C-alpha cells in the first residue's frame, strides 16, 4: 500500500492511514472523548474554570505523566517496574542537590547527567531481571527499596533547588493562554524520544517480547538485551519524572508519594495490557489527565479528598471493565 516512494502519497492514502490508525487506537480515542467529557463537566460545576485551570492541570500532571510513559514502556515489553516512584525520587534529589545555587549552563549538564543516571539505574533493574531470572515484580519491588534508600541518603528532607530556567520552561502559557508550556514540553519530549523509537526495530522488539516471548526469540530477537533496553528507557522517563518533580516544586523530593501505583493505574486506564505487547504512550498520558480531572471535579463539588481516591479506583475498574465488554462484543460480532 504505502511501499511506493512517498512522493506520490495521495489524500486517499492519508485518509486510509488515518482510518487504520483510528481502528487500532479506538481505546485512545474513546479515552480522549472521556477527557473532553470531564472537561465539560468541570466547566459545568465550576463556570470560571478556564485557561489558568488548564495550565495548573498541565503542570500538576507533568511528573505522573512521565511516570506513566515510563511504566507503559516496560509493561509493553512484558515486564513491570515497581521502582518508578523511587527512581523519580532519586533523580529529583540528585538534580536538586546539584543545581542549587549553580548557573544555568551547569543546570543543563545536571539535566543530562540525571537522564544518564536514569538510563543506568533502569538498566541495572533490567539487568538483574534478565540475569537472576527472578520475576520482574520481585526484582523491581526489591530495587524500589534500594533506590528509595539511596534517595534519602542524598537528601533526607525536601531541599536543594532548581535552576530558574527549568522552572520557567514549564510554567505559563506559550502564546495562546490555552496552550500551557508544560503540555508542550511533555509532548515534544515524548514525541522526540518515543516516536522514532517505536518505528525502529528496537521499538518493535519491545512489543514483540511482550506479546509472545517464544515467537520473538524465534524471529531472531535477542530477548535479554531488549528487555534491559526497555528497563533502561523506563529509568530514563522516570528520571524525566524526577526532574519534573524538581521543576514543579522548586526543591528535591526524596519521598514523592505513590507514583509507582498511580503509574500502573494510568497505563491500565490508558489501554496498555498488563500481559504485555499492547498499548502505547498516548493513552496513558490522556488517562493521567482524566484521573487528575476526576480529582479536581470531586474537590470542586466538595467531596472529602479521601473519598475522591476511592472514586478514582472505582472509575478505573469501571472503565477497564466497560472496555473489555466492548472488546468482547467486537470479537463475537
Amino acid at each position, binding site marked *: 500500500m504505502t511501499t511506493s516512494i512517498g512522493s506520490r502519497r495521495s489524500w486517499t492514502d492519508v485518509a486510509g492511514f488515518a482510518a487504520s490508525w483510528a481502528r487500532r487506537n479506538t481505546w485512545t480515542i474513546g479515552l480522549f472523548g472521556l477527557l473532553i467529557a470531564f472537561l465539560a463537566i468541570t466547566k459545568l460545576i465550576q463556570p470560571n474554570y478556564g485557561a489558568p485551570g488548564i495550565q495548573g492541570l498541565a503542570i500538576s500532571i507533568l511528573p505522573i505523566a512521565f511516570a506513566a510513559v515510563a511504566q507503559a514502556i516496560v509493561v509493553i515489553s512484558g515486564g513491570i517496574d515497581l521502582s518508578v516512584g523511587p527512581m523519580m525520587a532519586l533523580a529529583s534529589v540528585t538534580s536538586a542537590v546539584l543545581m542549587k545555587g549553580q548557573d544555568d549552563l551547569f543546570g543543563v549538564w545536571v539535566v543530562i547527567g540525571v537522564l544518564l543516571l536514569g538510563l543506568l539505574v533502569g538498566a541495572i533493574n533490567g539487568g538483574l531481571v534478565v540475569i537472576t531470572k527472578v520475576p520482574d515484580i520481585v526484582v523491581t519491588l526489591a530495587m524500589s527499596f534500594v533506590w528509595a534508600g539511596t534517595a534519602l541518603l542524598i537528601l533526607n528532607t525536601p531541599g536543594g533547588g532548581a535552576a530558574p530556567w527549568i522552572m520557567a520552561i514549564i510554567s505559563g502559557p506559550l502564546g495562546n493562554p490555552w496552550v500551557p508550556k508544560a503540555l508542550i514540553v511533555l509532548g515534544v519530549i515524548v514525541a522526540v524520544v518515543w516516536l522514532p523509537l517505536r518505528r525502529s526495530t528496537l521499538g*518493535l522488539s519491545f*512489543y514483540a517480547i511482550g506479546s509472545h516471548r517464544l*515467537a*520473538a526469540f524465534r524471529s531472531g530477537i535477542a530477548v535479554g538485551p531488549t528487555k534491559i533496553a526497555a528497563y533502561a528507557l523506563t529509568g530514563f522517563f522516570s528520571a524525566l519524572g524526577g526532574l519534573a518533580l524538581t521543576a514543579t516544586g522548586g526543591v528535591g523530593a526524596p519521598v514523592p508519594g505513590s507514583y509507582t501505583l498511580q503509574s500502573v493505574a494510568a497505563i491500565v486506564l490508558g489501554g496498555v495490557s498488563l500481559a504485555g505487547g499492547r498499548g502505547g504512550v498516548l493513552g496513558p498520558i490522556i488517562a493521567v489527565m482524566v484521573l487528575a480531572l476526576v480529582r479536581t471535579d470531586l474537590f470542586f463539588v466538595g467531596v472529602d479528598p479521601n473519598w475522591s481516591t476511592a472514586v478514582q479506583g472505582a472509575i478505573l475498574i469501571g472503565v477497564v471493565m466497560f472496555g473489555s465488554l466492548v472488546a468482547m462484543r467486537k470479537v463475537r460480532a
Partner: protein
Amino acid sequence: MTDAPAELLLDASGIAKHYGAVVALRSASLAVRPGEIHALMGANGAGKSTLVKILTGGVHPDQGTILVRGKPFVGRSPAEARRGGIVSVYQEPALIPDLDIRSNLRLTKSPIEATRHWLAELGLPDLDLTDVVRDLPLASLRIIDLARALAIEPTILMLDEMTAALPANLTERVLEVIGQTRGTARSVIFISHRLIEIGAVCDRATVLREGSTVGVVDVTEGSEDRIVALMLGDIARKGPVTSGASATAAAAARAADAVPRLTARDLTVGSKLSDVTFDLHAGEVLGVVALEGQGQDELFDVLSGSERPDRGELLVDGVARSFRHPADAIRAGLVYVPADRAEALLMQRSVRENIALPFSTQVRAWGPIDVRGERKKVDGAIATLQIDTRAAGEVRRLSGGNQQKVTVARWVAGGVRTMLCFDPTRGIDIGTKQQIYQLLRDLAASGAAVLLYTSELKEIQLACDRAIVIFNGRIVAEIAVADADEATLLRAAYDLRPEELMPEEVASAALTVDDADPAVPS
C-alpha cells in the same frame, strides 16, 4: 554414502545429546545435498525434535559436528542459526500476535517485495500487510511464516509439520513451492507425519530411531514401506503378540446390546477434529492411537468438558449431554487423567488432600469435611494403587510414577464410571506402568469404561480391548486387540492401508497429488 563433505549443504554427524540420564540422541546424522528436498522421519521419541532444536538454535549437542557448506555451524539461538544459513518454520508460527504483518517482516529483516511474491505463489496474493497477526486464521499465519522464511533465501529451509492444519488447496500450493527448490543451490528439510506428502515431494529421507540415524532412503514409489520398517526396527519383523488383555467382558457387554456408557457422534472441533463417532462400553478399555497433533487433544478436551465441540453430540448412558465445564463432565461420571501431572495435582499439598479433593468438593461444598469418611476412602485408594507415601506431605516430592498414581487414585477413591486417560504412562518407570495397566484392567473388570490414549503403541495390546486410530482429525481405523501389533498400528496411524495393499495404494495416492499439481517436477 559417497558424498564428499564439500558437496553437502548440511553435514551433521555423530550428534549426541543427553538430558541427565535420558539419552535423546545417541548418534544422529543428517546429510543434505544441494537442491534436494530431504525428509526427516522418526516415530515418537526417536529424537527428531531434539535434532530439530539443535539445528534451529537453542539446544547445544554434547557431541558431534555440524557443517553448513563445509563451515562449522553454531546455533545458540534462531538468530545465530539464521546467520549460519538455516531458517526454520515451526509448528506454531513464530509471528508476534500484537504486531501487523509488515512489522513482523521488519523484525526478521525479510524483504517486503520478495515476501509478497511468495505470498502470491502460496495462494495468498491479496493479503493486507497492515493486518494484525492476532486477527488472522492459523492457516494464513503458517503461510505468512513460510513466505517470510522463503524471502530470506536461506541455504537450508527447515519445515516442521508445515502442512498440518492447512486446508487442501493451500497444502497443494505449499508442496508446489517447495518443489521449486529442487535443483537449485538451496535445500529443504521436510518434516511431516503425512507419508503421502513425503512421497510426493521429497527426494531422500533420513530415518531416526531411538536417537540414532538408522537409514537414508531414496524416496521412490513404494519406499514408504521401507521408511515405516526402518522407523519400527526389530519389532516389525516380530509376529503379532497375543493379547494379555481379556476382551471377553467387553465382547459380552456389546453382544448383549447394552447401551454404551459413552457415545460420541460426529464430534467436530474446528479443523482439528472431524466427525468423530465411537461407542465406549462399560467393562472395556478402548485405546486411541494417533500421531502427535492429529486431534486427540481436542477429543479429550471435549470429553472432559474443557472445550465445547462445534458440532456433534455426546451421549452418556444413552442420554445426550453437553458440558460447559469440567465439573459437568465429572458429574456425568467422566473423569480425566492428563499426561501432564502438574495439570491435575496441587503439587504443594499432601497426597491425602489431593486424593480427597474431587469428592470433598463434591459432597460438602462449603461445610466441614467428614474427616473419618474421607480418610477411609483415601486409605483405600492409596492401598489399591500402592502409592509410596514416604514423601506424602507434598506431592511434588514424589516420583513421577507415584504422582501419576495419585492422579488416578483421586478418581478411584470416589468410584469411577468412565475414566479418560491421556497418555497416563508418559515418562514413568516400567514397574509403575505395569501397575497402571493392571489398574485399568481391574477398573474395566469392575464395570468401568476406560478410554486410553497412548503414545506407546505396545500399550494397546497390554491394556486395551480394541483401538481406534485418528489421523488428521478423523477416525481412520478400528482395530481389534488381537491384530493391534505395533506395525499394524503405526501403519494405521500414518493412514496407510494394510500391508498387502501397500505399494499400489500409496503410489496411486501420491499420483493423485501429482495430478492435481502438475508443477511438481518428477
